[in-house]
């Protein structure tokens, strides 16, 4: 495949044609905040935390879904980007009910750690305090929509790694939420194989193993990538 040369944060690099800005950056040790990106499943650009500046375009572009082009000049860390990232994080916190102190994921949550690493000391927007129903009907797993950021990592893991298609997104805008089968209680969703890949993929405390209490939800994300690499490349790299 043809290679493209581009600049990221002043560093000249080359990347395979078809690679995303995020892939190209990671290959060269340049990191940026991501939340809906999950190694092993395709990207959808849902969270907008990986937004970057590309010279010649006034719009900010998501690095995880934008492909590299020849001569591209990308900036991943500017005043403007920091401002938008902080805003995006604050909106995520304001949209649902994140009570970190009593959350199963406290201390192991990607949203929480992104917030402090981006300098979020408080949320300037009015909290919405919506009411959602917690689904604890499944024998092994639970879902608490109060902590869901709609990244759809669980949905993609369910459809494209496990192939079960149990999880889906329903509704629009602030009413969007994750459903199981035809919006039935998870415990009645026949298509669920109980594999737990969704729980492994969730960046927050929205999906958890039943019985876990405050701070107990740790996950092994590398398992998902391991399965995908094994399937696609026939390599069993642990």
């Amino acid at each position, binding site marked *: 495949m043809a290679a493209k040369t581009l600049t990221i944060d002043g560093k000249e690099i080359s990347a395979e044609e078809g690679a995303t800005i995020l892939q190209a950056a990671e290959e060269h040790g340049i990191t940026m905040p991501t939340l809906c990106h999950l190694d092993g499943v395709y990207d959808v650009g849902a969270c907008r935390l990986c937004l970057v500046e590309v010279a010649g375009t006034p719009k900010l572009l998501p690095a995880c879904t934008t492909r590299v082009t020849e001569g591209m000049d990308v900036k991943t860390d500017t005043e403007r980007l920091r401002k938008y990232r902080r805003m995006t994080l604050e909106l995520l916190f304001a949209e649902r009910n*994140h009570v970190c102190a009593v959350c199963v994921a406290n201390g192991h949550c990607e949203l929480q750690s992104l917030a*402090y690493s981006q*300098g979020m*000391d*408080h949320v300037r927007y009015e*909290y919405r305090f919506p009411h959602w129903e917690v689904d604890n009907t499944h024998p092994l797993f639970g879902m608490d929509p109060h902590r869901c950021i709609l990244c759809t990592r669980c949905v993609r893991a369910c459809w494209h790694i496990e192939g079960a298609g149990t999880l889906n997104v329903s509704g629009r805008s602030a009413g969007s939420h994750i459903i199981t089968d035809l919006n039935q209680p998870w415990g009645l969703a026949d298509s669920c194989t109980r594999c737990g890949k969704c729980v492994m993929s969730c960046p927050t405390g929205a999906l958890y193993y039943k019985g876990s209490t405050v701070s107990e939800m740790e996950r092994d994300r590398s398992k998902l990538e391991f399965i995908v690499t094994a399937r696609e490349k026939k390599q069993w790299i642990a």
Partner: protein
Amino acid sequence: MDRLKVATVWLGGCAGCHMSFLDLDEFLLELADQIELVYSPVVDMKEYPENVDVCLIEGAVCNEDNLELARKIRARTKVLVAFGDCAVTANVPAIRNQLGLDNAESVLQHAYIEHARHNPGIPKAPGIVPELLARVMPVHEAVEVDYFLPGCPPPASRIKTLMLQVLAGETPKLEGADLKFG
């Protein structure tokens, strides 16, 4: 030099932030030499004084007393610090907000009637029991806050970092994991 006039206040919170403050251990002795504690749950002072330099507010704004005190503090204090997650995010006390606009009535009903073993009845004595606000707020939604010290509770080391910055006359600035909620 005049010692810095410091206050600490306990609104709708569990006192955990103040416990963590007491965990400053021997640093408390150093502090005692450099500040004058003019109002706090740990000193006997009935009325919030005028001309306070720095006030740490623990707790969310949950009832009419909290709101009145927060406004008074703002008017009488130079630097206001939201102290701990309840002050910064409204945290656990704000879970009742999820129950909708009549949540105050339903939590009182639950606590004082459904769970009462003796004399069920909602305490209503005016001037004795402050009315709950319809919606629990983080402090910055009620009055302007200058700095934020998150954590549930903020570990003593984090409080110390901020207090040292304040004492040195620097702009308080916490970074990285010192901003972690929970």
